[in-house]
């Protein structure tokens, strides 16, 4: 039996349609990840009226209603699993810590690594489903010669989501199917329409699900219960104080921040949590070649430490980014990456994913 992770969106719904058409025995699973009614420590204590307003709100972030409708339409068994504790521990809390440490986190990747492909897979196994399918645009293939499971970009390069999946282990890949891997988004919508899915024209959500209508900065403050007053200095590259910031978690490396003395636009170059300080400078100084990686995961190769000589590959350092050639090697127990040419705004907390054409070699988190 295959468990399909259903979010209520067109993609995962269509994944279910395709598997069902192919004659698989499937079960739809949605994850209850976050309670919208929950009050965060830093939110003002609510009046009764606010409490009542809150109680009209849905408690789920994923559109579980839509997923349920789709499952009913397809006449497949469907269940909602509660993974709130797991989600909070492995996604929300690290997200907030990462911002407070001056990084720019990628919660969707954490959610994939820990919630979908770990906890959900575990729960699926408990109910007798040994394989999990999702609506990601990516492909999995077993490579006989290497004796390894490979992760490849989705065939539709514009929709490809392999970047978000670099953390999958061999074990996880062996139990995963991506039914949309060979399709483009318009093809998927067409299949959804053809199958009469109630959600075929539903727009995609771009927001980080648990943050919802708040700003990230507000969310971080409310979750951590730290209040607004986290201001500190903005300094230039000479160390002169040139302004005040409203909390380092509200900034991202590369973001534009005012105009310098010479009339040139200034950008956030570095976030220094220990000093509660932000360094700004000109665009030209944002470009670097080299960075260090933490928590690397290898897919197409066994381990970087086993390689003789540096690994040559193309490296993608954020979601919308054209991969650029680089060398990757181990030095003093640390994975180092060096682009052939300097790149703008290499941002701590973001993922760096290594490719050989469409094949994901591995990836990790940008440390510094």
């Amino acid at each position, binding site marked *: 039996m295959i468990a399909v992770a259903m979010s209520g969106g067109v993609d995962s719904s269509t994944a279910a349609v395709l598997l069902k058409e192919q004659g698989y025995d499937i079960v739809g699973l949605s994850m209850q990840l976050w309670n919208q*009614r929950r009050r965060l420590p830093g939110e003002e204590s609510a009046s009764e009226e606010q409490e009542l307003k809150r109680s009209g709100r849905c*408690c789920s972030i994923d559109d579980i209603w839509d997923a349920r409708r789709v499952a009913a339409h397809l006449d497949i068994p469907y*269940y909602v699993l509660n993974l709130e*504790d797991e989600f909070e521990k492995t996604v929300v809390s690290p997200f907030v810590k990462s911002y407070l440490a001056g990084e720019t986190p990628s919660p969707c990747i954490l959610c994939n690594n820990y919630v979908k492909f770990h906890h959900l897979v575990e729960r699926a196994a*408990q*109910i*007798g489903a040994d394989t999990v399918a999702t609506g990601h645009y990516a492909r999995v293939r077993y490579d006989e010669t290497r004796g390894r499971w490979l992760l490849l970009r989705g065939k539709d390069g514009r929709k490809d989501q392999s970047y978000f999946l670099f953390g999958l282990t061999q074990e996880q890949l062996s139990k995963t199917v991506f039914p949309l891997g060979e399709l483009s988004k318009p093809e998927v919508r067409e299949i959804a329409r053809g199958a009469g899915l109630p959600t075929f024209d539903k727009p995609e959500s771009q927001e980080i699900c648990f943050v919802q209508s708040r700003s990230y900065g507000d969310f971080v403050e409310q979750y951590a219960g730290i209040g607004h007053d986290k201001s500190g200095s903005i300094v230039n590259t000479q160390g002169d104080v040139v302004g005040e910031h409203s909390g380092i978690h509200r900034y991202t490396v590369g973001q534009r921040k005012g105009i310098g003395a010479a009339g040139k636009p200034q950008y956030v170059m570095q976030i220094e949590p220990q000093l509660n300080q932000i360094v700004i400078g000109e665009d030209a100084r944002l470009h670097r070649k080299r960075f260090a990686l933490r928590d690397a995961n290898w897919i197409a190769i066994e381990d970087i430490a086993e390689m003789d000589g540096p690994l040559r590959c193309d490296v993608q350092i954020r979601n919308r980014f054209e991969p650029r050639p680089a060398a990757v090697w181990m030095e003093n127990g640390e994975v180092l990456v060096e682009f052939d040419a300097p790149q703008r705004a290499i941002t701590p907390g973001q993922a760096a994913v290594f490719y050989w054409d469409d094949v994901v070699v591995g990836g990790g988190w940008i440390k510094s």
Partner: protein
Amino acid sequence: MRRVYLDSNATTPVRPEVVAAMMSVLTEHFGNPSSIHWFGQHAKSMIDDARQHVARLINAEVSEIVFTSGGTEADNFAIRGIAESQKAKGRHIITSKIEHHAVLHTCQDLEKQGYEVTWIPVSRDGVVDASSVRRALRPDTILITIMHANNEIGTVQPIEEIGRIAEEADVYFHSDGVQSTGKIQVDVRKLKVDLYSISSHKIHGPKGAGALFVRKGTILKPLLTGGGHERNRRSGTENVAGIIGFGQAAKMARESLTSDMARVAELRDLLETALKSRIEFIQVNGENAPRLPNTTNIMVDYAEGEGLVISLDLKGVAVSTGSACSSGSMEPSHVLTAIGKTPDEAHGSLRLSLSALTTREDVEYVIEVLPGIVERLRDLSPYYKKV
């Protein structure tokens, strides 16, 4: 796929005779019972018949039955109605820690409004000690509300004893009888309750109908005001079809209660004995207490209730678990917590509840499939090491 329904404490299948009775209302007897004309009178007299059936089921007078939209409304009506009507006398309420949410959340809401609530604990077997109710009494106590039978573990509370205590103290006594009615003999006179809640869909009637027994002379503020229906106790044009179905279900429950429940108890015991012999590390919650004949609540160590329920459902068997994701979050049931279970234990609990329509084949099918499911879950559990 074979479908076996063992979740009768959640709701029960509607009996065909109930459906037939309701159909006549939906198709022919559509009149408004308040109308003067033939159509109205006919509907009115059908409701009167239904009221008689419901009254007889619990040994009440017909004039003491107020139809409501179900058990939840009956509970709210009883508790809020007394709280309002007696607030000049006092603002103290006594209840237990294992009430249904309809009572629990209503009492919590009253706490927010300035009432004081004493939450009586239960024994590890899930039974309220009547003497602790006596000790909780205060001069300003206006209401005792203790359920008759618990919906999760099926334990039956000493209502008669508490009834005597309430009578002596001259305090109003409400009991939520949603689970007990139709499963054990209920005599509101013997129980000495002033208020007693019943729900139609737990006794093979339709959903959205229920009743509150209101002893003659009880002063109760209505929840719903309007046209003064139900002797001014509950306004709103009656849910005629629902009430007629409820009446038919009550009639049938009374006629066959003794024989049905003897058979149900036998099947439940068969189920419990077989599961205990085929699955190691299971316990029956409330096993040593007086229990409903239809309910068994088992705790399966080293297995998640959610995984058990889903796996069983995929095999066609409908049951429920003690950690309801009712409000969206995975909270261990307050009932299992009250009988001293840890959250982990509560998450591994399974409630199987039978009804008069459950067959021996149904039970045998569950005995056949459950052990394999438990084994799979345990094989995947890092905590389970076979001894």
